């Protein structure tokens, strides 16, 4: 896998991606490259469709326009069977782990292996224990998902995501709601797994410090566009107002404090409208 390291051809190429949901434009012609062997962070304020982007890459949603290529194959036009083949090469870590609640930790990690391979049970056992060891939870294999803390559930889900040795892992908000210790564990895991397994990682997050600390490249999304990109240092030094507001957490800026509304004074005087709308 090492030779691919320096291969500059991106694993995922997104061009002119446009996506709309319920008439609202989520993405308005964005271009993105995910390079092999790197950790790429996609950041931006809540509601900018970061998770939607992961679902588009996974082929769970179809864009209105534009192209998404994974390892040279067009995801947006792939048939069902082909899409399923491609997904075996992607792992996805959902926000809360999304472990199957009716199986224990061991069976959850074994699940993709049992579904997609005909490996004998002893070999599955070895693989599962290897993956669990990688996330440090080999001892928790008899626990049910309801007995795990949020951080542990995510680590089990991570073990499950790497069970089939994918090329790429998509992380959906992995740090949300974690205490500092488990956040630190996750940060380290993402980075080390990326190195040791030769993965390509895509990280969707709004936790600036953590994401910036492990990312090789950062895309900043806002208003359906890529507003800034670069390494963490480049972004901190950029003069983009978007980047500055987001990185420093300013309440007002290009992302306005106020939701778009008519003139304040006029709105107060025209009080009947809401009542009519409600009726």
């Amino acid at each position, binding site marked *: 896998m090492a030779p691919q390291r320096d291969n500059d051809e991106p694993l995922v190429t997104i061009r002119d991606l446009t996506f709309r949901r319920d008439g609202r434009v989520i993405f308005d012609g964005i271009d993105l490259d995910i390079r092999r062997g790197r950790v790429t962070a996609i950041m931006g304020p809540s509601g900018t469709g970061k998770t939607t982007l992961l*679902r588009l890459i*996974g082929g*769970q949603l179809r864009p209105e326009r534009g192209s998404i290529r994974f390892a040279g194959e067009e995801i947006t036009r792939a048939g069902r069977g082909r899409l*399923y*083949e491609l*997904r*075996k090469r*992607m*792992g*996805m870590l*959902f*926000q*809360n782990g*999304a*472990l*199957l*609640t009716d199986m224990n930790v061991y069976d959850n990690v074994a*699940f*993709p292996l049992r*579904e*997609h391979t005909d490996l004998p049970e002893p070999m599955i056992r070895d693989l599962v224990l290897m993956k669990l060891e990688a996330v440090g939870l080999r001892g928790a294999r008899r626990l049910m998902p309801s007995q795990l803390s949020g951080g542990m559930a995510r680590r089990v*889900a991570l073990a*499950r995501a790497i069970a*089939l040795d994918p090329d790429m892992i*998509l992380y959906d908000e992995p740090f949300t709601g974690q205490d500092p210790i488990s956040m630190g564990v996750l940060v380290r895991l993402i980075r080390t797994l990326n190195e040791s397994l030769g993965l390509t990682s895509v990280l969707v997050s709004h936790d600036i410090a953590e994401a910036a600390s492990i990312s090789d490249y950062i895309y900043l999304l806002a208003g359906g566009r890529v507003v800034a990109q670069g390494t963490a240092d480049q972004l901190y030094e950029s003069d983009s107002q978007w980047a500055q507001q987001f990185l420093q957490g300013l309440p007002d800026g290009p992302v306005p404090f106020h939701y778009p509304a008519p003139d304040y004074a006029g709105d107060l005087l025209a009080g009947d409208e809401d009542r009519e709308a409600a009726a």
Partner: protein
Amino acid sequence: MLDLLQNLGRRGLGVFERLGRASLLLVQILAGLHTLLPRPRLVIQQVFSVGVLSLVIIVVSGTFVGMVLGLQGYNTLVDFGAEESLGVVVALSLVRELGPVVTALLFAGRAGSALTAEIGLMKATEQLSALEMMAVDPVRRVLAPRFVAGFLSMPLLAAIFSAVGVLGGYFVGVGLLGVDEGAYWSQMQDKVDLYDDVYNGVIKSLAFGWVATWIAVFEGHDAVPTSEGVSRATTRTVVYTSLAVLGLDFVLTALMFGD
């Protein structure tokens, strides 16, 4: 007035849209059934949670319904001196109507709501999405086994309900009220027809099993993925299944016995 019409129209369209989505899901489920053949365990697991776990409520309700039928039937028949026909009354009511219908209603409350809640929660906690991303089709892996299990369990549950009910009626009629034991069984055998009554009863419960599980699975799959959405979907399952079962029962009864 126009608003009312518009509202009505919008609701009507919504109903059709949901019906369309439900039919589409059913087609997907049916198209995925062949993938279950090499993996009967998936279905067995679900027969356990749909069928076996409903067993207690079915047996208890069946016994009591049979006992009530025995009591009420006796009190009515004794006025005509026809209490020997008690077996006929109990068996026909159970096999033709109460067995399939009450079982389906209990099924909606016990198993249907559980199915919807389970699938809805799996959706809300992104388990279905996760399956998709693991290249596992949730319709085939999660919905299809549940559908098959419900469809197969219903006639068995209804048969158990009816059989237990006949015994309950026997207990009250013969054991407590003194109806002749021979008359109870022989009149029953004379008047209850295998084809007309038992067979049609089984057909009914198969139809109910189909509809009840379809609704439960669809509502779960179509639920808004929040806790409120799941609880609403669960309620809808029980309401819609009950309505559908009662309506369908009328249609089937008219087709089967309405000559």
